[in-house]
């Protein structure tokens, strides 16, 4: 079959790239997962590269999983998460509470490893054609939904077509716009699906993975009543859901998943979620012993939890950011030297220390950041340099300083970040006036009026995105739905299209370097850090998987006495 031939050839190509020093082994691991190579095939490729076949875990996963005690089956695990902001519906969820709950019940074609690489779930393999605009997915056989109906290609077609229908209101539409159009998803047979893309897109598998959380696979006849009748193929079934109070899930006795020793998953009998809005109250729930785990511990206000000796904290190098966007259509941000001056005014280490206790990874205003996206070219670091910042301002005609307004939502650590920017920019002559508004207000209005897309400069919070390309597609192109900077650089756009159109890793690496360089030089946005996520649990809780708070995989988790 052509796809298998492609996969084989692509595998050889990856090995050559590693042997020639064009790629790291970690990069091979990630790219091989994108092109649907099996775990066995990847192990063989790594062996061919002369490496050990074991993949490195994240530090957190190692901490959580090292010296694991014997598996204990049964029992109930209690977790505390924020309540879903709206009625549970996989098609339209967008918040942590909703995503975590849906993730237990419904599954995706592809899931994420702790390192943000792809791993097969309902799809066992996937591969593009040579051009990269047709992707063929082989589906897992013998899977049934928890209502007994069989999982087939027609369910995948219906699920994907549903989220790209504007009437569904799904956030996945914006991510897939210009890449996959209605009618582009076809069932080849009962267990093969083909995606005919609008254009070649090398990162397409991520767009139908768990990272695109609205693409959960639901029965073909799904009618939007998930909260009452939660049908999915996942390891858990919804037993009860009381709005803003709690959710109880029980194990799906017909779940297809088995562990490496052939034992039925999940190990636990029951999951209970306390739905708590206030982070202080959630922390106290954990510290009092009322719950066993908190999938996301917020650093602000979480000091007592993080220092509690009875708890274990896992740190996940997430790709979430706080985007500081400069609207290039508004004064004084048309001039890139002013944007660069802000970038050189920031002491990123101090910001990381103040906001996250130094736990996050530093960013240098580009998405191609190797500490969080393995294999990306290393960008030049941007240290605080007031001399350079003043010179840039002077060259831009602002020798006596410049007044700017920064809009920020009164949400999470955003106001504190704004204050740090304000304080650090002042010595350079950049006088930042902070316009702090409510979370609702910053997203209010239409595309042409909403502050987050129209303020002169704004801080926007972004959850994890799986690749630099997905980030860029979302906010750095003139066609991006969520571009707060309104940046439109022809060279970047052309290079980006080439980057997403090629499967040749050497070419991709070269193009990535160019994209990173353009983005950093132009500085339409400041990416000062990639936020590490903290997961906190009792010390008798083991083997929770998944990268960060949204992907809370407890199918192989267990608790000792």
């Amino acid at each position: 079959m052509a796809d298998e031939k492609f996969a084989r050839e692509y595998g050889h190509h990856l090995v050559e790239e590693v042997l020639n020093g064009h790629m790291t082994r970690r990069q091979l691991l990630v790219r091989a997962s994108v092109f649907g190579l099996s775990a066995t095939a990847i192990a063989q490729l790594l062996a061919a590269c002369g490496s050990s076949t074991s993949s490195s875990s994240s530090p957190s996963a190692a901490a959580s999983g090292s010296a694991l005690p014997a598996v204990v089956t049964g029992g109930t695990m209690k977790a505390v998460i924020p309540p879903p902001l709206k009625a549970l519906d996989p098609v339209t969820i967008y918040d942590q509470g909703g995503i975590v709950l849906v993730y237990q019940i419904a599954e995706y074609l592809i899931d994420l490893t702790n390192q943000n690489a792809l791993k097969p779930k309902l799809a066992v393999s996937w591969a593009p054609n040579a051009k990269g605009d047709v992707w063929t997915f082989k589906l897992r056989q013998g899977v049934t939904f928890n209502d007994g109906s069989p999982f087939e290609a027609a369910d995948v077609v219906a699920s994907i077509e549903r989220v790209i229908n504007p009437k569904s209101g799904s956030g996945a539409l914006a991510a897939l716009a210009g890449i996959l159009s209605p009618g582009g998803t076809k069932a080849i047979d009962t267990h093969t699906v083909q995606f005919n893309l609008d254009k070649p897109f090398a990162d397409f598998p991520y767009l139908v993975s768990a990272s695109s959380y609205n693409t959960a696979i639901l029965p073909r006849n799904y009618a939007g009543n998930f909260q009452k009748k939660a049908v999915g193929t996942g390891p858990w079934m919804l037993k009860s859901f009381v709005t803003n109070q709690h959710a109880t899930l029980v194990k799906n006795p017909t779940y297809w998943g088995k562990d490496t020793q052939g034992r039925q998953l999940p190990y636990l009998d029951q999951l209970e979620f306390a739905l708590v809005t206030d982070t202080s109250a959630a922390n106290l729930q954990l510290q009092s012993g009322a719950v066993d785990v908190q999938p996301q511990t917020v650093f602000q206000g979480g000091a007592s939890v993080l220092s509690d000796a009875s708890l274990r904290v896992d740190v996940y190098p997430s790709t979430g950011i706080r985007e500081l966007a400069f609207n290039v259509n508004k004064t004084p941000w048309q001039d890139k030297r002013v944007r660069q001056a802000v970038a050189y005014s920031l002491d990123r280490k101090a910001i990381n220390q103040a906001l996250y206790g130094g736990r996050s990874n530093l960013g240098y205003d580009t998405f191609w950041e190797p500490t969080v996206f393995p294999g990306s070219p290393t960008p030049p670091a941007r240290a605080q340099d007031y001399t350079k910042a003043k010179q840039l301002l002077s060259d831009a005609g602002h020798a006596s300083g410049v007044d700017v307004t920064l809009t920020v939502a009164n949400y999470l650590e955003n106001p504190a970040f704004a204050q740090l920017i304000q304080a650090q920019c002042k010595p350079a002559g950049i006088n930042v006036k902070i316009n702090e508004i409510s979370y609702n207000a910053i997203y209010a209005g239409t595309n042409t009026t909403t502050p987050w897309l129209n303020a002169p400069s704004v801080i926007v919070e972004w959850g994890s995105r799986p690749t630099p390309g997905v980030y860029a597609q979302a906010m750095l192109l003139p066609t991006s739905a969520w571009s707060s900077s309104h940046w439109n650089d022809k060279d970047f756009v052309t290079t980006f299209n080439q980057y997403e159109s090629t499967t040749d890793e050497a070419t991709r690496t070269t193009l990535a370097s160019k994209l990173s360089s353009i983005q950093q030089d132009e500085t339409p946005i400041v990416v000062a850090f990639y936020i590490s996520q903290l997961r906190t649990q009792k010390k008798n809780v083991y083997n929770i998987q998944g990268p960060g708070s949204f992907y809370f995989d407890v199918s192989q988790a267990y608790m000792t006495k």
Partner: protein
Amino acid sequence: MARLIGRRLLLMVPTLILVSILVFALAEVLPGNLGRSILGPYATQQQVDILNHHLGADKPLYERYAVWAGHFVTGHWGASLQLGTPVFSTVMRALGNSLLLAGFALVIIVPTSILVGVYAGLRRDSLLDRAITISTLSMTVIPEFVSGVILIVVFAVTLHWLPVSAMPPQGAPFVDRFYYLILPAIPLMLLELGYIARMARVGTVQVLAMPYIRTAVLKGLPRHRVIFGHVLRNALVPTVTVIGSQVGWLIGGLVVVEFLFVYPGIGNMMINAAQFHDVPLLEACVLVVAVLYMLSNLIADIVVALLNPRIRMGG
């Protein structure tokens, strides 16, 4: 008396209409819109517009109000736009929780406050009176989130004597709920104790200075008969009024306590509904709380009238 009650009940109707109009108008000026709240920041504008049209959120304000009011008065409260659940049962469940917490708190607060206040009034200017006055005054200025956090850290996190949450696990017997309500009731008691006890103290001091109390003492009535038969009856008139005004707050205004102790009451629900532009749920919550507020004040007035014949006679 019947006329008083009838007139007050009739006055509730225009008040509720005015409140409903105000809430509708205020919800309009809140930032954001319904479609965006439901679909989130990552939905496209086209998707938001389609949903707003589908929900009728793009129609003029007066038209939406007329439709909503028509349904509401005929008993069709609709479904929450945020939660997808029926408004009536959702509000009633939250109201039940709030009434239970308020009732539990009042059962502790009212007798304690009156006892402390009257006792301080009877021992006017003594060391004990000053101690009670200063301590209750101090407690009223401690915000609930401060006292609540301290109580949780001490009694739930450190000592593990009481649960951190105000709701028992699913399936627990109903009586367990009172055990879970002990901790959240304490910050409320600390707050209310100061107001009610001070009012009871002032009332007691004032009544003790009245000539009829001196007459009662001089004619040789036992002290307990003077206090229970003459002092309390008159001293508690202003106290009852204060209690009546606090009942509404205890039912609909416990947002901080509900947040901190993870309690699904109606105060929390109102805040969420307002933030989400969930007007059907918001209107129902506000109107229910408004009715309770007015009823509690009415009941307080009736009690005052029963205690004071001059008010009763004056109608």
